[in-house]
């Protein structure tokens, strides 16, 4: 079981990678917990989560090879 994680904007600043591989997580809550443990600065910013390009609002089960994208808001114009 492996999940692909894509990062954007300030999330990439924190993870230092635009793409990560995360093993052994069952759902998005577990994934976020793990990421926040590895990258504590994630706790201080806001972001939205998409599973296989669909924005989610609640905990979502993950399958092997799913792609989770983490998108922060920004407001430059």
């Amino acid at each position, binding site marked *: 079981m492996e999940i692909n994680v894509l990062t954007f904007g*300030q999330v990439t600043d924190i993870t230092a990678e*635009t793409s990560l591989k995360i093993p052994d997580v069952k759902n998005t809550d577990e994934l976020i917990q793990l990421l926040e443990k590895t990258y504590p600065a994630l706790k201080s*910013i*806001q972001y*939205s989560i998409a599973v296989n*390009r669909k*924005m989610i609002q609640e905990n979502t089960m993950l399958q092997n090879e799913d792609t989770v994208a983490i998108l922060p808001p*920004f407001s430059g*114009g």
Partner: protein
Amino acid sequence: MESTNKYQRYHRQTVLKKFGTAAQDKLFQAKVLVVGAGGLGCPALQYLAAAGVGTIGIIDFDVIELTNLQRQTLFNIEDIGKPKAEIAARKLNSFNPDIQFPVYNVKLEPKNALEIIENYDLVIDGSDNFPTRYLVNDACLLLNKPLVYGTVLRFEGQLGVFNLTDIETGSLTNYRDIFPKPPLPSSVLSCDQAGVLGVLPGIIGTMQAAEAIKIITGIGKPLCNKIVSYNLLSNLFYEFSISAAKEINATFPKTKSEFLNFDYEWFCGAAQESNEITIDEFDALRKKETITIIDIREKGELPVLDEVSFTQIPWSRFEEAVSTFSKKNKMVIFCQSGILSLTAVKLLLEKFPTCQAYSLKGGVEALKKYHHKSSQTSPINSG
């Protein structure tokens, strides 16, 4: 030039099979408002004017600065210090004099937003801050106007279309379905601090104009219920589909009167950091505007507070009383020490997500200390 056919200038697009003079007529009739004549606004304005959109409103209260010229392509060195909206309209008018360019050299606020936006068919958001983005989003929802969203930072941009029903699925989404609440002010970067490669807003702003033209003319598939993230460095486009948030999470003002009373600066600023207000903030707020102050202590609890006027609603009957509250003003709730009032604010926000309620940090005890101190120190300060 008067003798030329009105379509001649647009020949290269009217010759397109899916476009023709029918689409051009729709552009002639269309009214588009561009919020912000900056990095995104300039290219969007230029291409909308080039395409022949009949009325293009320009709203911006900023003046042109030297550091704008790296990306804001409508302005020259000699324009520095002059108002963006006016200069943009003047340049565009000489470029395409057949178009009307209403100029709004004002800050977009709840009190003027609805009367400005209701004159337009579609809005392009090229603003550079969260309060304006949430305000534009909410105003478009209330007035049922499609909104073409775009934003940039460093080498990344986002593009989307909100409040436009997807004819295939019937679904309708907005910015708050992605980001229900603004980020903490301390956690976000602006282009001033973090930078932006000048060509990037050129790309995203031009794409916003393209989406507007698609929506107006009905060609192709607009990006409704989706946002696209574009990374200039890697040339990657990543598309996200959005679904409407459940009503329970929806915290936007649902009526015009709620909208008029919604303080976007506050929503995106201090209020985001916590639901607590310090004594200093409370004092400043009280001087600035009319607020509702509520004491939730039980009758007879001491000390008696005579420094401010307030309404007394004891906690024991608070829940039944809240439904009759007027949610027009900001509310500051206090108790003895500032603990119970936090619970009261939480309850209020659950029942009325758009109300602006704050708990007074430290409660009456802190307030008494503050007034005691300021009454002692004020003669010295004033001397």
